[in-house]
């Protein structure tokens, strides 16, 4: 589904990604881990199409098409969703209206009929269950005055409405207490499906106790330095990132 080959990117003239290779198949859950500054979030943003980042080399295909040539909205309409590390506030625009507009933009693009307010409300109520999203949150302006936990739950709620084929969670666990983390993880797990791939970007292993990945990749210095199964995350928990970085440095100097 997603093929990343030798992807390189920089921001403000600084090289961040130095050759990423990664394949994600439908139905799989991949965790991308790594120390601060390793390029995890950059990778997520580049996949979503943020133009702050300049792609300087490599290629990315999504369902066989050149992903890098698509605008952010076309990527979203093709089924890519990113849960933001810092969800953005949009004052005066109700969460409900925002989300219905987004869903209808995607549906239009796929030749589906748009949902009216009543049908949308029914869908939203259905999806709210289990995420502990209160209905009051829906009529409030997008993310404005939301607590950190509410913002993250709102991201997952949006994801459940938009039903992406490829979901990218960018440090969704940051700033969450354990209860909020469980709610968010349950929401994500409910979306696991053979029809969908999920990439979980995280600094800590903690989230992976609840969202158990099929594959774990460790990013360091803009490259994937180690890949493995879910046990790799546990190893990182015990040993930290230092030993991997040392090993990479040794390998480079040898």
């Amino acid at each position: 589904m997603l093929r990343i080959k030798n992807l390189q990117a920089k921001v403000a003239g600084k090289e961040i990604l130095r050759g990423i290779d990664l394949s994600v198949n439908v139905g799989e859950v991949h965790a991308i881990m790594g120390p601060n500054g390793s390029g995890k979030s950059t990778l997520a943003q580049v996949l979503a199409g943020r133009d702050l980042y300049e792609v300087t080399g490599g290629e990315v295909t999504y369902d066989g098409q050149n992903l890098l040539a698509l605008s952010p909205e076309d990527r979203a309409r093709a089924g890519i969703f990113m849960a933001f590390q810092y969800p953005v506030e949009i004052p005066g625009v109700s969460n409900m209206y925002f989300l219905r507009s987004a869903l209808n933009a995607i549906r239009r693009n796929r030749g589906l009929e748009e949902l009216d307010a009543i049908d949308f409300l029914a869908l939203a109520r259905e999806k709210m269950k289990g995420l502990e999203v209160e209905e009051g949150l829906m009529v409030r302006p997008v993310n404005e005055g939301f607590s950190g936990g509410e913002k993250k739950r709102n991201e997952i709620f949006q994801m459940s409405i938009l039903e992406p084929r490829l979901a990218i969670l960018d440090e969704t666990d940051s700033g969450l207490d354990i209860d909020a983390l469980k709610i968010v993880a349950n929401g994500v797990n409910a979306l696991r499906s053979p029809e969908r791939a999920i990439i979980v970007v995280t600094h800590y292993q903690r989230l992976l106790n609840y969202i158990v990945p099929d594959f774990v990749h460790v990013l360091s210095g803009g490259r994937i330095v180690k890949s493995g199964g879910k046990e790799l995350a546990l190893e990182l928990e015990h040993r930290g990132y230092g030993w991997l970085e040392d090993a990479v440095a040794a390998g480079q100097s040898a």
Partner: protein
Amino acid sequence: MPTPQTEIEILANREYKYGFVTDVETDTVPAGLNEDIIRAISAKKQEPEWLLDWRLKSFRHWLTMKEPTWANIHYPPIDYQAATYYSAPKMVKPGAKSLEDVDPELLKTYEKLGIPLKERELLAGVAVDAVFDSVSVATTFKEKLGELGIIFGSFSEAVREYPDLVRKYLGSVVPYTDNFFATLNSAVFSDGSFCYVPKGVRCPMELSTYFRINAKDTGQFERTLIVADEGAYVSYLEGCTAPMRDTNQLHAAVVELVALDNAQIKYSTVQNWYPGDKEGKGGIYNFVTKRGKCLGVNSKISWTQVETGSAITWKYPSCILQGDNSIGEFYSVALTNNYQQADTGTKMIHIGKNTRSTIVSKGISAGHGQNTYRGAVKILKGAEGARNYSNCDSLLLGDKCGAHTFPYLEVKTAKATVEHEASTSKIGEDQIFYCRQRGLSAEDAIGMIVNGFCKQVFRELPMEFAVEAQKLLGVSLEGSVG
């Protein structure tokens, strides 16, 4: 991939849809301004002596005045002798009683503007007075309103039919000596709307005036006077458009509102005069004096304006809160793009006890637009218990535009409360990206963000106008949910 910046430009550069010219034969006075011209205008309108005297008094005073320069707007000197002060489509006879007397070309014009004048095609619930250049073309639903004792129609007609009412209130809120542009208007005003709602009557429909400038090099100087007698209520809407021309045209209107005891007037404007082209050529110079007087106790005057047009906007709809417990409100959205300049705001003058005022101003600047909020809150000595709340927010789209805020405050009693909040923000790349990541186009994203920014003002507008205002800002309509 289009960047947000170019999308902002596309939005800002949308074409003006109302720029066509109607080909009608006109009755026009020669260009220039002197006492003979004023006499000629007055004679064409078959005015009584007292009104001609008032005009001449105004003109003589105007000659002693200087054009104000304190506003944050810049334009080449206006040649007041080059403009034409009266132009009327020939086929409209003064006092035309039915639409059959109106040139079909004119009716077509209003249809094109989306304002059909045939009552059965009209939105039920809105009565329209259509003003074309210097005269009122038609007023709808007059009879129905008449049954309730409500007087609604052209100013000229009111002068003929209700001279005592007009004489009593004309200039009572904006005296002929008030300011350069109001004084000019007092000398040369052509037509406009007049409305009187009698004691205890709640006007059952929205009253509306639609102003259209058509003739070239002609100024429009209309005058509106609305009086709500004790316990009356009226909601009034004003809309305006003009053809695209590459010379600037002057519009200097005066609006006076009077609310007696327990009366309420709600005045809403969607101003869409031609703003000029992308290089800033052409467009209307809009110098308007709007003021309401809450004369009676417990009265209320509420101004809501959406200003998207004009090359220059100079406009401060204000309230004189004279009656005890009276309330003044000002809700404003002003959008400037390309080379538009707006210097707009309000004055709230608290005289009576326990008077309250609310000011909510939203300025949006795009392109090279310059947007200034200028507001004054004056609380006089006797206004014990007065309260004011002001909130002025500015939104910048792009990095070549400007936003400025000048709040003035004068409080002469210790027993008053004044609050002021202000903010300036730039439309965020991260906001736009967030919307696009959810599948919305950059243009829709900007529209949505701008619309959200204006929401506090839009919700004050009557339904039909709120829709038009949102469309004007290039936004899709907010849904019924939320």
